[in-house]
């Protein structure tokens, strides 16, 4: 499980935090351990810190046995969870004795197998625990109890304390039992959390953890990296990628706020083929927040909270309202943001738990995280479509990277609704005539464009709702671009659309790409600040012919 921790050298900063954790472990060794919650904003590196700490404890000392467990959404039924928890603990605990790495990776071992195996190694106590566990098979709550107290039991039997590191602890609120989620099951953790010889270090979504109100645990904040460490991390990632890039703008580092997730994503997106200028760094940032790693991170979070339709829209509007009012002149006497009363309690709660806003004594506050806010703003702009009055600084990257358009260029922005592609086709016809493009060229381009639009509509399931089309005729070329803010279905290396399930299965969409290629001279895909763009080009001379026979009109 913990194998995918970063290499020690790749883990930068957190000197203070690691010191704290070591001190915590020492306390545990002395038998006076205390359970703590490691809290911090999303992407701040809680999981990575836990993994690093585990790695250190496992390999570099013998006094205290570490146990790392990351709660999975797939394993939340009580019996399953209990069994998973117990078996993993025992594997790691037994592995610790002789530093056996292979044991750490043991998956799918049954309880009986493990019991036998433990006894072979002289760990009778483990065997006992497993036997007891099996005897509880018809009482899931008992199973849970046995599992949760296993670390303490081992400490008592072997005399060696255990450091229990649990990631994504908040998910345990959804532990379910006989079909129904039962948040009170968490209470069973309470006595485990108070075990001095087996203290717990838990982490997860801070807002949700707060809602769990765990008694007797200390909250330890994990702060963003300090500027110096942030810069080192960024440079380290660039170096690891072998780029010649240097000189990340301080303003960008400030914006990324010392958040390791952001730093790694953006550093990972900087173009590596040449020495980068300032623009390249900003471009990487915009890309990541609009459609890259950062985007996906938050889009996933949003999706689990707000499924579709009305609730999602309401949430976005509420968030947007709160964010915008933060930028309002501070002299305003009234409390900003939507009143708690206007949002439904469920929605308000969900918003708070999402971490996209903070609750403040009866009101709401935007988080300090500007990147998070940028994500929401862009989402809002796309889905609800109102131009925000944003900070000029934040507009700058966008403006920098909008395509320079000169000459005869027509731009369309369309809502993604059924048969929008027909609107495009009609417009293309009209515009083509205005630009004096030959009829057959228009006709072929129409085919390709329709296909491109349909692709765009198909591929974006993220809820965005607009298409941006530009049509230009310059010199010898007609060029149409179709841009949709959407899921990254672009595979960077090939420049081809992602050969996803539809294509692999030989489905209809797979034909679409061939079609587009047939009717155009040039076809390319680009990542833009807003999403993905497909650019279709045709020469305007009369000699242009479709390469194959016509495909029946989709209409």
């Amino acid at each position, binding site marked *: 499980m913990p194998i995918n921790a970063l290499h020690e050298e790749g883990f930068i900063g957190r000197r203070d935090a690691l010191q704290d954790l070591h001190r915590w472990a020492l306390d545990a060794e002395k038998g006076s351990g205390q359970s703590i919650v490691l809290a911090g*904003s999303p992407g701040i590196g809680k999981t990575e810190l836990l993994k690093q700490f585990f790695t250190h404890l496992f390999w570099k000392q013998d006094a205290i046995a570490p146990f790392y467990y990351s709660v999975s959404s797939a394993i939340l039924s009580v019996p399953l969870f209990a069994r998973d928890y117990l078996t993993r603990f025992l594997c790691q605990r037994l592995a610790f004795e002789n530093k056996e790495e292979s044991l750490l990776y043991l998956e799918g071992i049954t309880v009986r197998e493990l019991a036998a195996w433990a006894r072979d190694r002289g760990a009778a106590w483990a065997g006992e625990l497993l036997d007891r566990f099996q005897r509880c098979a018809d009482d899931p709550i008992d199973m849970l109890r046995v599992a949760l107290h296993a670390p303490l039991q081992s400490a008592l039997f072997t005399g060696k304390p255990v450091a229990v590191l649990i990631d994504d602890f908040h998910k345990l609120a959804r532990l379910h039992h006989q079909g129904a989620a039962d948040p009170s099951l968490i209470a069973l953790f309470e006595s485990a959390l108070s075990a001095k010889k087996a203290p717990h270090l838990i982490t997860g979504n801070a807002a949700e953890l*707060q809602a769990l109100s765990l008694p007797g645990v200390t909250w330890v904040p994990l702060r963003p990296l300090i500027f110096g460490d942030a810069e080192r991390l960024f440079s380290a990632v660039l170096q690891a990628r072998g780029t010649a890039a240097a000189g990340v703008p301080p303003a960008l580092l400030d914006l990324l706020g010392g958040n390791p997730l952001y730093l790694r994503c953006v550093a990972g997106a900087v173009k590596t083929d040449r020495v980068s200028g300032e623009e390249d760094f900003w471009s990487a940032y915009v890309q990541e927040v609009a459609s890259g790693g950062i985007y996906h991170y938050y889009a996933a979070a949003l999706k689990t909270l707000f499924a579709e339709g009305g609730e999602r829209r309401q949430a976005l509007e509420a968030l947007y309202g709160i964010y915008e009012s933060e930028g309002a*002149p*501070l*002299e*305003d*006497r009234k409390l900003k943001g939507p009143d708690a009363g206007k949002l439904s309690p469920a929605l308000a709660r969900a918003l708070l738990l999402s971490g996209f806003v*903070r*609750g*403040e004594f009866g009101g709401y506050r935007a988080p300090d995280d500007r990147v998070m806010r940028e994500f929401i703003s862009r989402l809002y702009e796309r889905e609800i479509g109102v131009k925000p009055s944003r900070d000029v600084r934040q507009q700058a990257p966008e403006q920098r990277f909008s395509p320079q358009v000169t000459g005869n260029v027509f731009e369309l922005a369309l809502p993604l609704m059924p048969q929008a592609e027909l609107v495009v086709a009609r417009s293309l016809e009209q515009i083509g005539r205005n630009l004096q493009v030959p009829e057959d060229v228009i006709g072929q381009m129409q085919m390709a464009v329709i296909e491109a639009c349909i692709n765009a509509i198909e591929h974006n399931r993220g809820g965005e709702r607009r298409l941006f089309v530009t049509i230009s005729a310059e010199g010898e070329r007609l060029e149409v671009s179709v841009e949709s803010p959407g899921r990254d279905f672009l595979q960077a290396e090939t420049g081809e659309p992602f050969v996803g399930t539809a294509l692999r299965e030989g489905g209809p969409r797979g034909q679409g790409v061939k079609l587009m290629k047939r009717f155009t001279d040039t076809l390319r895909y680009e990542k833009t600040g807003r999403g993905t763009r497909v650019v279709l080009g045709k020469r305007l001379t009369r000699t242009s012919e479709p390469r194959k026979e016509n495909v029946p009109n989709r209409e």
Partner: protein
Amino acid sequence: MGTRWDLKRMLFNLSALVDLGQEVTSAKGYAERMRTAVYVITGMFSVPRAALFVYDPEQRALVHVAGKGNEELQDVRLSLRSSDVQQLPRNEPFPIRDMRTVPFFQRYEDILAKLDARVMVALFAKDEFIGVLTLGRRLSRKTYLRSEWDVLKVAAHQLASAVHNARLFAQHAEKARENKRLYEDMRRIYHETIEAFATAIDAKDEYTKNHSYRVAHYASAIARQMGWRKEQVEAIYIAGLLHDIGKIIIDRKVINKDSDLTSQEKEEIKNHPQVSYEILSKIRFPWKEVVHFIRHHHERPDGRGYPDALGEKDLSDGVKILALSDAFDAMTSDRPYRQRLPLAEAVREIERCAGTQFDHHISTVFIKMLEQEIKGKSHGQPILESMKMEIKAFRDANGPRYNA
């Protein structure tokens, strides 16, 4: 993370409020306290620029008292009408923008802009307008949350009370100082007036120039020697200065007459204590005994004095001291009708009259004082300044008795 963070910040602000409370009531100077208060408050909200103005009701203006980041505007004064004051919310922060239509804010738009005043709190203590605090833009550019607004209100209350108290205290201190000054002035006026009188008295009589001074001098020396309190000594000094005020009335000719006085003239002179009394009784002295001394300074313990022929038991010490002093000076000064007695004679005369004309005890004290001075051993003010020559002669004449 959210709520915990804000709890922590609230805690920080609360401890800052405690700091504020301690600061404004500390023993430091007013200006320093106010400045520190501004720093504490701006520290709560990360505000780089702020200004504290205190209202001067006499000038009807706000005077800059302390601030941060606004040094060049230190001597600013903003005049404020009471109608303006009424429009201000009390101890409640408000954005200055909202007050655009209020005359005061229009008038001083420029200055307020220079101060970067964005938020203002009008400070009131018990309905009395104390001043205003202006805060500039926060470093974070963030809006104030309700909880922060509340903290600011509390801080404003504390600040208003502190300034108010400091003012009251200062006013009282000022009053006390003023009273003291008045008192000293009065005293001075008294003395000057009295001395003017004394001069007038003495001017009437050529031979008694500075007589009043000397009598006052002797009398107060005796009183001091007898352990009298400072105010009492002062009283008898005054009495000494004024004891012959009655003489102002008496005709100059009579006083300076060369030959023997007629009985009528004697009568007239005898009247002077009475006249003194009548004049002086119209004046209010801080020492009530003064008038009494003056009236009776010609009395004698044996009852043959004037004007009231009081006996020993009716005479106060002050009267007796004054009587002795007066007589002593008469003896040792030239008169139109006789020359002065030599010091030895005067002393003998006093000894002789102790118990009859003069009080026995007081005479003894006086003589002892004289002896000390003659021997050169006196430790107070010298009594016999004017008679140094005489002293020498006295010593020589009287041999060992008066020598060391």
